[in-house]
């Protein structure tokens, strides 16, 4: 609008502009001050949310009386504002008698002709005069009209959605990039809430909150590009392997609805888990026993990982150390999790004979996922021990010295020069039971006796099925009926059970052991009943001390259910090995 075109509305403005120009050049010469409270952004779209912009201007003239206060909206920020940039006068008030005033105004986003203005930035200009020589202009304030809400244009992650912050030479920060077509995204609030999946509860749990990286802004392809940064740590500072999702949210400050989008990612700190899939018909375990004739030629291994497995390597230990040459297995390609390790014939890359003789061998397997995580660095390598044994164990020997029993269950015991194997027990040549040999080479088992006299033999069988020659025969006599069966010599071995069969039902049987000098050294209540009782003596006194070897008198007291107690005394000898 040009001067002199007859528009009455612009006449005072032109006058003011002239005054402002003079005041701007001269600067404020009094204590006159303007304070403006306003809402920067609003969306005049009738959704009842920030549809207008509230503006409160407080003018303080100090000692001087205010002449007037002016507030207007312009399309440019320049000072003094150009009349041509005026969009609407909000306030033009002359206060002649007051030294300060408060002016409240509301802008609905329209110009002085009532036409709605387009989305964009506009500028609030306010100035006041207190006396002819005092004019104060407030710096221009940017206001925003934005009737369109924020929207995620695109979301991407760098380096990849498989985030491996603990991998060697890997990025330790995940970048969540997003773009938005909204022109004011930079002033909006952008956040990402990280949820971790709990497989047991089948639920997502929020573990971290990250905000927009304020230092990063790019304008590419006609849209702004921003980012959020996450170092993989949850609220407690821990880096936990698992499936995650990021809930990105843009909150608009002009009152338009927020926008939210969801992206999935994986935080990977775990290397592949290795297990034996099949090894001669056996799965799992770490120790294998094979007879040379049944040694499998291939070991099948499974490498499981949430990512694809990149490779698997095997090392063979024949001596004190593992072979320095690790074998990268053929077929170890991404997404392949099962591997075949050739054993026979042994690969040329491994040292030693091409065949396996009796002995112990060790294999160590390691795997790497696509993120570059090796199991040996981020897990437990699979270490296998292979025993090749074609030699039969030595024949066991009986340590049981009691050969006559009056109760049907007896404990037979013996030793075997090869520990860790099993012993099969035979009664008159028929296999009855299998029992393990402990680390010290001893075995014992409770067996059920057959009436009469029978020969018991034992044969050792090792892990690979080699069977030892039979032991010497142990003739066991089982004669049921009322009797007292006490070993004459007690050596503290398994099976030295004192058995008492009573002729009638008994309430209890008590054994009292006396030294030959008359001192009572031990009292034992026999277990069982009502007619078959048994007791084991550990050759200690009541205070738990080992008794000295030699003769003792045992007094067996039987308390029948009806009638008086009966006593029987025997002499026993402690003969420790």
């Amino acid at each position, binding site marked *: 609008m040009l001067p002199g075109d007859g528009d009455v509305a612009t006449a005072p403005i032109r006058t003011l502009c002239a005054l402002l120009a003079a005041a701007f050049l001269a600067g404020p010469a009094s204590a006159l001050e303007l304070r403006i409270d306003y809402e920067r952004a609003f969306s005049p779209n009738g959704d009842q949310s920030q549809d207008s912009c509230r503006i409160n201007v407080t003018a303080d003239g100090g000692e001087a009386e205010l002449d007037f206060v002016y507030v207007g909206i312009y399309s440019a920020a320049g000072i003094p504002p150009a009349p041509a940039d005026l969009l609407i006068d909000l306030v033009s008030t002359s206060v002649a008698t007051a030294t300060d005033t408060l002016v409240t105004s509301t802008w609905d986003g329209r110009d002085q002709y009532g036409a709605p203005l387009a989305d964009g930035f506009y500028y609030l200009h306010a100035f006041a005069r207190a006396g002819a020589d005092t004019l104060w202009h407030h710096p221009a304030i940017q206001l925003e009209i934005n009737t369109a809400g924020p929207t995620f244009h695109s979301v991407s992650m760098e380096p990849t959605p498989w985030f491996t912050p603990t991998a060697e030479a890997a990025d330790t920060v995940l970048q969540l990039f997003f773009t938005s077509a909204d022109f004011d995204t930079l002033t909006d609030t952008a956040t990402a809430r990280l949820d971790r999946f709990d497989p047991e509860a089948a639920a997502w749990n929020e573990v971290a909150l990250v905000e927009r990286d304020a230092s990063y802004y790019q304008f590419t392809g006609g849209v702004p590009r921003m980012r959020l940064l996450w170092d993989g740590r949850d609220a407690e500072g821990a880096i936990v392997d698992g499936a995650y999702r990021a809930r990105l949210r843009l909150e608009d400050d002009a009152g338009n609805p927020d926008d939210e989008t969801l992206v999935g990612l994986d935080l990977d700190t775990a290397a592949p888990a290795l297990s034996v899939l099949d090894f001669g018909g056996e799965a799992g375990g770490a120790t294998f026993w094979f007879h040379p004739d049944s040694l499998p030629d291939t070991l099948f291994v499974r490498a499981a990982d949430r990512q694809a497995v990149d490779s698997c390597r095997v090392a063979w230990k024949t001596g004190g150390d593992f072979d320095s040459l690790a074998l990268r297995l053929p077929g170890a390609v991404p997404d392949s999790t099962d591997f075949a390790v050739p054993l026979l014939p042994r690969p040329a890359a491994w040292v030693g004979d091409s065949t396996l003789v009796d002995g112990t061998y060790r294999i160590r397997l390691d795997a790497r996922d696509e993120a570059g995580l090796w199991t040996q660095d981020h897990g437990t390598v699979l270490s296998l021990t292979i025993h090749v044994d074609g030699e039969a164990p030595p024949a066991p020997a009986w340590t049981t010295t009691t050969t006559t029993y009056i109760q049907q269950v007896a404990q037979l015991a013996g030793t075997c020069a090869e520990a860790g194997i099993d012993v099969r027990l035979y009664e008159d040549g028929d296999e009855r039971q299998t029992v393990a040999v402990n680390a010290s080479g001893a075995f014992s088992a409770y067996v059920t006796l057959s009436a009469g006299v029978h020969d018991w033999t034992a044969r050792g069988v090792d892990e690979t099925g080699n069977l030892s020659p039979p032991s010497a025969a142990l003739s066991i006599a089982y004669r049921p009926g009322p009797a007292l069966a006490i070993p*004459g010599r007690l050596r503290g071995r398994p099976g030295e059970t004192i058995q008492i069969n009573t002729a009638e039902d008994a309430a209890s049987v008590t054994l009292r052991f006396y030294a030959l000098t*008359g*001192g009572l050294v031990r009292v034992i209540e026999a277990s069982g009943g009502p007619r078959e009782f048994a007791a084991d003596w550990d050759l200690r*006194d009541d205070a738990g001390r080992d008794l*000295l070897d030699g003769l003792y008198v045992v007094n067996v007291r039987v308390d029948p259910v009806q009638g008086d107690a009966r006593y029987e*005394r025997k002499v026993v000898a402690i003969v*420790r090995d």
Partner: protein
Amino acid sequence: MSATRRILAAACLLAFLAAPAAAGSMGGSFRLWEHGARDLALGGAGTLLAPGAESLFTQPASLVGMDGWEAGASLRRLGGGADLYLSSAVLGWGSGHRAPLASERTPTSLGAAAGAFQYLGATLADDTTWGEWTLAGALAWSPLRWLSVGARGSLAGGGHDDGEDVGRAVSLSAGVRAVVLHPALEVGYVAEDIHHRFRWEDGEDRRREPAHVFAAAARLPWRVAAECLGRRRFATWERIALGAEWDAWPGRLVLRGGLTRHGLGEARWTPSLGFGLGLGDFRLDYGAAFDGGDGPGSEHRLALLWRGGGP
């Protein structure tokens, strides 16, 4: 070295030897067993009342009670069904007889020595047999009229009759007795097994924990004498006994009785009775302890003693 210094040195040596060097066990056999029928009749409280060759088995310091030589033999059998028997023979000799003062009741030699042999046989619960033998020797010395000391060593062996389980043991004990306060009052102490080692052939050494035996005896009017005794091991009184004898017909008949309290495990009381018949240089003693029911069984001993060579 004066007699007093010798006594002090012997007492120090005794105390040193009696201190246990390492944890030991109790019970067992391969040892010198109590032998005398007189001792059994007194409930085991005969360490001071029966000075003579039989003291070899209980209180070696009492050997000085011999006036000349003594020879004895005894049989011991356990009743109640346990098949166990013990036979013993002892020979002793005292030297340097002191003429007793009017107030003294116990004849005392300056020195004495004795030796014994025992055989213990048993039938075990599985009807197999067992046999042990023991050789023992002892020396006693009375440096003062009111004091005597003695030491005893033994060697035992044997085992199962199949020859598979054969053991050996050596043992050393020492004792002291003294007249205190009144000529009729005596006290005694025996450190049993102050040195002891036992082992099976090719086996490990094992040791019996030393026992401490304290005794006091009084010779009362009307030809009555009494003794009380306590045996202590592992901080426990294994046995406390009281015995008395009445010389009913001097030189012909002695009546004896005793009461023993066994303190290990379930405490129990065992009464005992016995008598002695004098026939010139011979004496025949019988003793019995009654321990039925829950006990190890009653016991009977018969002993014959022949004395000679005295003043």
